[in-house]
């Protein structure tokens, strides 16, 4: 038989016909379509029992209530808690991405001891017993040498059980050096102290205000309690309330406001005083408040020193705008002036805060609906009195290393001064504990902070993440993350009613971590004697339950409780406290650097998509940053097209940015929304630590700026720095 071409073809045709009447092609089509829907890298939520747990978000000071959706033991989603007084179901991008901080790659999984050089990233895993005995040994040695005051701690805030455990620990040990991360709360606290004589915080009844005058506060960029401010802003929009935003740059907040008034940066206090002048001169002020202490001197000051023309010249805002703004503000039925730039992580100038607060007083909205309330938190921490031994007593007699309470009598903590004190040899520390804070990234002049840390022989980080400070520590004792632990979360953040929330272990600890509260107690117990006696609790949880008392049950059930109240004011409002007269006379803080070498002014800006505190942006969040903020691996510097033209810089070009404190390579973004002569960089980029999603992207603004001490408060009042931008 001759098998030729035709036979072969007919075999093939037969085969094709046969295949068509088998299930093979149809089955393969079906299977491949299913296969293509199930790529192995497509995330598929686990199957199991669903449940919901309420807790609190601690990723910023906002204190939002969260509801966690779980499938069996895995959290699959974070949602805003419905009915929560702060955020009522809302949530921000950070809060939403929280699971990546629980399950993501940036966690420190066990206690680590440095083996290489600092910052080299070489670690040895050690057990908790070894870690605690290492710290204990160091502390015992220092204490027996009578150097107890050379131990310090940096924590995120002053309130709550964990910061107070640190404070108690240091007190019992004999060191006054309990330091906290700065924020506008420090300045507002001081303002209320000086002008109203109360030890309280400013609470803004934002929801009820009808004319909001914001001196650069990022209302929808993360100021105050961010989700609450978002909601307030939406309500203002819906109800036709007015928002006027004063800042040199068209931020998101400015863009959404009713009126954006660009101002020369750093002159906000001058504008506030100018507005005060118009209000007083036109008798638009609330008559009741005018008879307050210091009013006459204040009136004289603003009328003599802050004439409209002068203010117009200094601020760059034309006189007619100033006059009409002052009139509109004073004539509104519930006007509210707020300040603290961007997200409020820099305390800012006391002048400015007092001038703005004086505006509120002038229009009579202090402790009024829609105005500013002096609020105090209920101090539920009632621990047994500390028995201090002689070492502790001696240590506590010493002055604080940062000069708070001595050089600057009004301040409680001045972390911004630490680097300079240490680097100039005026003080030193032997041990530093860092918990819930990342000063090596987020303090201005972070390089100087790193130099200061380099000279501290023993750095202990309690961070859950490999952040910049942990990366440069000698020992990391990782804390549980907020979804794995119990902790009280007192929240002020500009709320008119303070709230305390409770985080709870939504999942069991994923790694070999320990609650920082437990670790502090374990170290104290290992030190023995009076130190051990100072902590009579079995565990942190026991301490928390006992501390919260009846609140515990409410918090476990509801997740939050109102915690504190509005102060009833006694005495007068003081428009012109002594401290202002003798020290600053409302003189604005100027930007560092000479105008000749550095012709431009660099200011930072915040966006809701970039976290710039202890928490770095989780991968979801960093993905959401626009390419006019971060392009590739470079931060974009915003520059007015006019200035760009003068410097020969075009969109997308690389440029070298130089300030008296540092330099960076940036990309040019020409932006009409920034005043000529001024350039802006985002905060929250330029991490060197965390994970590959965050590290190496953009430049850290804090490496380019240094702190500027406010003459009265001692707090950092730097709002910008002089800079030079050149083509590369």
């Amino acid at each position, binding site marked *: *038989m*001759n*098998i*030729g071409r*035709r*036979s*072969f073809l*007919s*075999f*093939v*045709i*037969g*085969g*094709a*016909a*046969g*295949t068509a*009447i*088998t*299930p*093979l092609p*149809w*089955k*393969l089509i*079906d*299977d*491949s379509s*299913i*296969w293509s*829907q*199930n790529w192995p890298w497509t995330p*598929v*939520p686990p*199957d*199991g*029992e*669903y449940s919901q747990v309420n807790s609190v978000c601690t990723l910023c000071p906002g204190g939002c209530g969260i509801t966690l959706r779980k499938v*069996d033991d895995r959290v699959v989603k974070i949602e805003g808690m419905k009915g929560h007084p702060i955020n009522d179901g809302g949530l921000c991008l950070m809060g939403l991405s929280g699971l990546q901080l629980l399950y993501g790659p940036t966690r420190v999984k066990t206690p680590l001891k440095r083996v290489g050089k600092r910052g080299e990233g070489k670690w040895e895993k050690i057990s908790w017993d070894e870690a605690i005995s290492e710290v204990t040994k160091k502390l015992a040695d220092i204490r027996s040498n009578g150097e107890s005051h050379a131990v310090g701690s940096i924590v995120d805030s002053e309130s709550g059980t964990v910061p107070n455990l640190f404070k108690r620990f240091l007190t019992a040990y004999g060191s006054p050096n309990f330091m906290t991360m700065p924020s506008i709360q420090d300045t507002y606290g001081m303002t209320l102290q000086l002008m109203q004589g109360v030890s309280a915080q400013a609470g803004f009844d934002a929801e009820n205000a009808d004319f909001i005058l914001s001196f650069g506060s990022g209302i929808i960029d993360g100021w105050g309690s961010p989700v609450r401010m978002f909601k307030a802003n939406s309500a203002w929009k819906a109800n036709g309330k007015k928002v006027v935003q004063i800042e040199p740059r068209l931020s998101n907040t400015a863009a959404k406001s009713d009126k954006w008034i660009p101002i020369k940066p750093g002159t906000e206090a001058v504008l506030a005083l100018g507005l005060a002048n118009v209000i007083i001169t036109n008798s638009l002020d609330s008559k009741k408040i005018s008879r307050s202490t210091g009013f006459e001197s204040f009136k004289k000051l603003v009328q003599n020193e802050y004439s409209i023309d002068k203010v117009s010249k200094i601020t760059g805002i034309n006189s007619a705008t100033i006059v009409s703004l002052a009139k509109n503000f004073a004539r509104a039925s519930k006007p509210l002036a707020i300040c603290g730039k961007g997200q409020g992580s820099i305390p800012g100038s006391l002048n400015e805060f007092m001038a703005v607060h004086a505006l509120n007083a002038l229009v009579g909205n202090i402790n009024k609906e829609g105005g500013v309330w002096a609020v105090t938190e209920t101090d539920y921490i009632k621990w047994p009195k500390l028995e201090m031994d002689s070492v502790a007593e001696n240590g506590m007699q010493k002055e604080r290393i940062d000069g708070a309470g001595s050089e600057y009598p009004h301040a409680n903590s001045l972390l911004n001064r630490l680097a300079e004190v240490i680097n100039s040899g005026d003080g030193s520390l032997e041990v530093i504990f860092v918990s819930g804070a990342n000063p090596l990234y987020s303090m201005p002049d972070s390089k100087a902070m790193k130099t200061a840390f380099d000279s501290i022989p023993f750095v202990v980080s309690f961070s859950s993440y490999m952040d910049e400070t942990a990366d440069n520590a000698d020992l990391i004792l990782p804390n549980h993350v907020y979804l794995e632990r119990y902790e009280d979360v007192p929240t002020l953040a500009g709320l008119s009613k303070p709230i305390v929330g409770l985080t709870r272990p939504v999942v069991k600890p994923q790694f070999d971590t320990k609650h920082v509260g437990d670790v502090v107690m374990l170290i104290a117990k290992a030190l023995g004697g009076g130190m051990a006696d100072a902590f009579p609790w079995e565990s942190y949880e026991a301490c928390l339950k006992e501390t919260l008392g009846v609140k515990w049950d409410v918090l476990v059930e509801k997740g939050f409780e109102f915690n504190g109240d509005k102060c009833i004011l006694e005495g007068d409002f003081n428009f012109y406290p002594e401290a202002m007269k003798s020290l600053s006379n409302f003189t604005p803080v100027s930007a560092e650097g000479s105008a000749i070498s550095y012709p431009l002014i660099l200011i930072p800006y915040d966006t809701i998509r970039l976290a710039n505190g202890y928490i770095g942006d989780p991968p979801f969040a960093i993905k959401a940053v626009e390419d006019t903020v971060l392009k590739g691996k470079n931060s974009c510097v915003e520059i007015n097209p006019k200035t760009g033209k003068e410097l020969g810089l075009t969109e997308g070009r690389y440029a070298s940015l130089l300030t008296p404190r540092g330099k960076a390579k940036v990309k040019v973004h020409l932006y009409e929304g920034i005043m000529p002569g001024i350039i802006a960089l985002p905060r929250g980029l330029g991490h060197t630590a965390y994970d590959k999603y965050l590290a190496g992207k953009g430049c850290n603004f804090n490496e380019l700026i240094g702190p500027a001490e406010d003459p009265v408060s001692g707090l950092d009042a730097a709002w910008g720095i002089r800079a030079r931008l050149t083509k590369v």
Partner: protein
Amino acid sequence: MSTQDDKAKEVSADGAAGPIILFFILGLAATLVFGWVIFPKLLYSQKKQPIDFNHILHVEAVEEGCESCHFFREDGSFSGIPKLAQCVECHEDAQGEDPNEVKFVEEYVANGREVPWLVYARQPDCVFFSHAAHVKKAEMDCGTCHGHIGESEHSRVYEENRITGYSRDIWGKNISGLRKHTWERMKMDDCAECHATKEIKTDVETLPWPINWLPRPYEKQTGNQARVKTVKEACFVCHK
């Protein structure tokens, strides 16, 4: 000049029609055998369950039938294959001498490890299926979809589709995709069969439809009984 004869010659010169037909049949037969017999064998791998499970034994021992182990949670969601925690309620220690039970207790219970059961009825993640709607509301029997699994003494071999990773039970044992009983296949068509035909205690109103001879796909429910028939937006009932 070409004649009839010439043509005949041309054909026979290259072989008669016979071999051509033969080869056609050969090709046909080979692919038929491949498609119907060899292909299914290649497509599915055979896997054994980690523990051979005796349903009869268990059903006899429990009080509430299938629901004793495959229960509804408080929120109405269905628990599916039991988790170790449920098994442990009875099997903290081995109750008998069956080597399977001993293995189960030693390997899984003692180590607190979940049994990696191979799930015959597992559907892709894009399929949303509510057991409650079918079992509770429509009062369907488990067996309608799952067959007589409750009456088995041994766990069947789990045949895994090498391409999709799902069980052969979804497509059905019969590679042609045909089935006799409702529980022999679990593809969308099988769901649709009930959903398209069953009129269940519900009043529906037909919406205007421009082409008379085409079946009307859109119906609006007027009663408050959940509808079974597919209506507008029904895709998202199952494909969330």
